[in-house]
């Protein structure tokens, strides 16, 4: 097994050093405030488990997203009520509030991510990270065409919400 491809880290510590921020940002989107550290830990644990099986056939980012989304979206048992409440509040605020004029790009990004559903938010994060529709297809298991359609819808939604 050859791990040393062009964008493949030498060891797991290096991988965490290179992508720790990304992992934490993904966890921040899917976990409640108090549970971000737990989800980060869970993702790192799962990455460590599957690290030996990762052959570097796909981009490291794709692999991280696969593992991270698996962790984030299938561990809903402890957070069902909170997530439902969060979704309801997000929907309510999306309908009634806007981002104040002059808000920073970071604030707009954060607000937009919170308004999107979990799947669209995942696609947006991957899109921001420069993954192609084909890469995302390998992560999510849906067609690249369906992903492109969703990105176009998000683009429209973004324009409607933030572009005057």
């Amino acid at each position, binding site marked *: 097994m050859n791990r040393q491809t062009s964008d493949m880290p030498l060891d*797991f*510590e290096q991988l*965490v*050093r290179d992508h*720790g*921020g*990304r*992992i*934490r*940002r993904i966890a*921040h989107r899917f976990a409640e405030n108090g549970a971000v550290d737990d989800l*980060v*830990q869970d993702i*790192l*644990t*799962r*990455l*460590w*488990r*599957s690290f030996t*099986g*990762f052959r570097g056939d796909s981009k490291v980012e794709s*692999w991280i997203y*696969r*593992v991270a*989304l*698996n*962790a984030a*979206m*299938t561990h*809903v*048992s402890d957070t*069902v*009520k909170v*997530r*439902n409440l969060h979704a309801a509040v997000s929907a309510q605020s999306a309908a009634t509030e806007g981002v104040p004029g002059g808000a920073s*790009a*970071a604030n*707009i*990004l954060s607000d*937009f991510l919170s308004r999107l*559903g*979990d*799947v669209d938010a995942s696609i947006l*994060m991957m899109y*921001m*990270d*420069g993954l192609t529709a084909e890469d995302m297809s*390998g*992560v*999510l*298991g*849906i067609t690249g065409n*369906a992903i492109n359609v969703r990105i176009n819808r*998000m*683009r429209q939604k*973004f*324009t409607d919400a*933030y*572009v005057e």
Partner: protein
Amino acid sequence: MKLEDLKVAWKEEVDQSFRAEDLSMKSIMSEVAKIDRSVRFRDFCMISAMVLGASLYFIFGWLTQERVDLLSRFSVLAFIAATAVMSIALLRARRTTRSDDWTLRSRLETEIERLEKQRRLMNRVGYWFLLPMLIANGLSSLGGYDVRTGSHVPNATGWALFAGCGVLYGFTYWLVRREVTKKWDPVLTQLRRLLADLLGATEMPVDAEK
């Protein structure tokens, strides 16, 4: 501003989000070991409790008895068979893949299938575990009573004992059903909603909403 303009903000956030404490290999390894231990311990506790119960029943209900009538023998065998079936069903229902390197769709579908399997198992526990156990208890008691008194018709104490067992088993069944309704069903609903969101209405599998 366009959606693409957020890429710079995203990159900055990712760069700033790294924390050195995430890089604790020791805590990762310890977490992996802890999860492995807890899964093994949970399976071990459940199955060993059932095996112990069946063994004790076999020893004290059959081996140590001078005379064991047909009903008691049938009861012990039924108890052992129910324990074996339950243990196998538990192991099979709990078996999950260790791979996290799947597409989200595969993972969601597998998780839904696993939960549905466990849910069905728990919903049927009354039919193929509690009820046979109750019958086994009854048959064994009647057998023992016949050995002592020569009659299969129990006295008032025997009837009270059967009624107590019936209530206890009924309560257990209610607890299991309550666990399924309160805890598992909301999780299943959430997972199905995610899958539906992922696939969109047109790609939704026919059996996903069963």
